[in-house]
């Protein structure tokens, strides 16, 4: 039952983020750039939930985004799936109890997601490659995502620990000793 509620809440979080992106963030851009909360959400699932959940949620959320507004179906799904996978890898190799580590993880996954999506679009839909504007936008987006992670960190820690307890049990620290 608890797992069901967790899944419902995660889906609800996706919908809230979607509406924030399509309505609110249009007015809260930094240098014309919006943050990417979907990356943070999928990374969060990959870090704290069951190891396949990050990938599955990444693909499902990505597909929905592609259906809603994407240029090609599947591009966002692939990249968010990869973000979920990276989340699992980060969870195996690094401690997410540290705020700085988590911020760095968010920035790295943002870079991976955007570069991957841009390259796929470049090859699939022949989107022109504009390196300097792309880097400019990517840098601002990374900083924006880092700021949002700092703000959301306490919430991520509390809810993440509860999800982790439910999916992984109370054996969280055993691997560090």
């Amino acid at each position, binding site marked *: 039952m608890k797992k069901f509620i967790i899944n419902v809440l995660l889906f609800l979080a996706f919908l809230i983020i979607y509406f924030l992106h*399509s309505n609110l963030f249009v007015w809260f851009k930094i240098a014309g*750039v919006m943050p990417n909360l979907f990356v943070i959400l999928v990374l969060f699932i990959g870090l704290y939930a069951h190891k396949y959940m990050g990938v599955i949620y990444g693909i499902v959320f990505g597909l929905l985004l592609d259906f809603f507004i994407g240029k090609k179906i599947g591009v966002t799904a692939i990249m968010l799936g990869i973000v979920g996978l990276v989340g699992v890898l980060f969870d195996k190799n690094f401690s997410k109890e540290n705020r700085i580590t988590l911020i760095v993880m968010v920035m790295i996954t943002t870079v991976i997601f955007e570069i991957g999506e841009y390259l796929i679009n470049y090859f699939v839909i022949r*989107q022109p490659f504009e390196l300097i*504007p*792309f880097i400019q936008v990517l840098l601002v987006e990374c900083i924006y995502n880092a700021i949002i992670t700092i703000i959301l960190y306490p919430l991520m820690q509390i809810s993440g620990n509860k999800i982790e307890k439910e999916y992984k049990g109370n054996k969280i620290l055993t691997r560090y000793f």
Partner: protein
Amino acid sequence: MYNKKKYGIAGVIIAIIILIILFFLTNIQNSKMSYFENVANKVVMPIQNGLTFLKNKINGNSTFFANVNNLKQENENLQKKNTELAEKLRELESIKAQNESLKQYLNLKEKYSDYAAIPADIINRDISNYSKNIVINIGTKDGIKEGMTVIAAEGLVGYITSVTDSTAKVQTIIDSSSSTSALLSTSRDSIVCKGILNNDKQLKAMYIPMDATVSQGDTIETSGLGGIYQKGIYIGTVEKVENTTDLTNRYAMVSVAVDFKKLETVLVITNK
């Protein structure tokens, strides 16, 4: 005995004298008595005023208490009226917004009367920083198909890339993967306008013929080449010409006519 008679006669005489004085006083003109009157007034009036004030106050209060119920009733009626008026105001505002929207549709239809077009509202904008697609609220049920041109009152918006039953995705001309075949209105030279990744207001006009003369303020419209857009739809004006040493590489920055940030209503051209 003698004394008693003596005091009795004196009392009668004094009484008669007082009566005679009073008789004379009552027959004297008022004006001649004003001095005394003033003195009396000066002594009495402040007290009289104070008492009158208190009396009035008490009278007023009693009226207030008597009217509390009436006031409550009146207040309720006014609140009711206020609610009704607020409701009417909301209705009027809604009608006003609807009217504005219909006016926009009408203006659009009049402007592009040669084309059969369907009006639509923008219901979603791209959530990515790297693309600038929009979603409109009409789809296959309304006769919308892929490849149809989308315009606004100011000029060209883009074209339909995918359609569902009730929505359609539009690739805007400012999207970086968009290339629009265009004409310089004055010289009729063909150019290609491309979207710029981090710019919502300008297009990059490329492949300008070497012998073409491009100057600031030149208007740009669709050429009709490529088969996506109809000919002659306004795109924008040349804002800046960037001359390079090699003439083949020169380009111009085109200021887009449509303000994509504020765009709410569009028209989809259904005939080619």
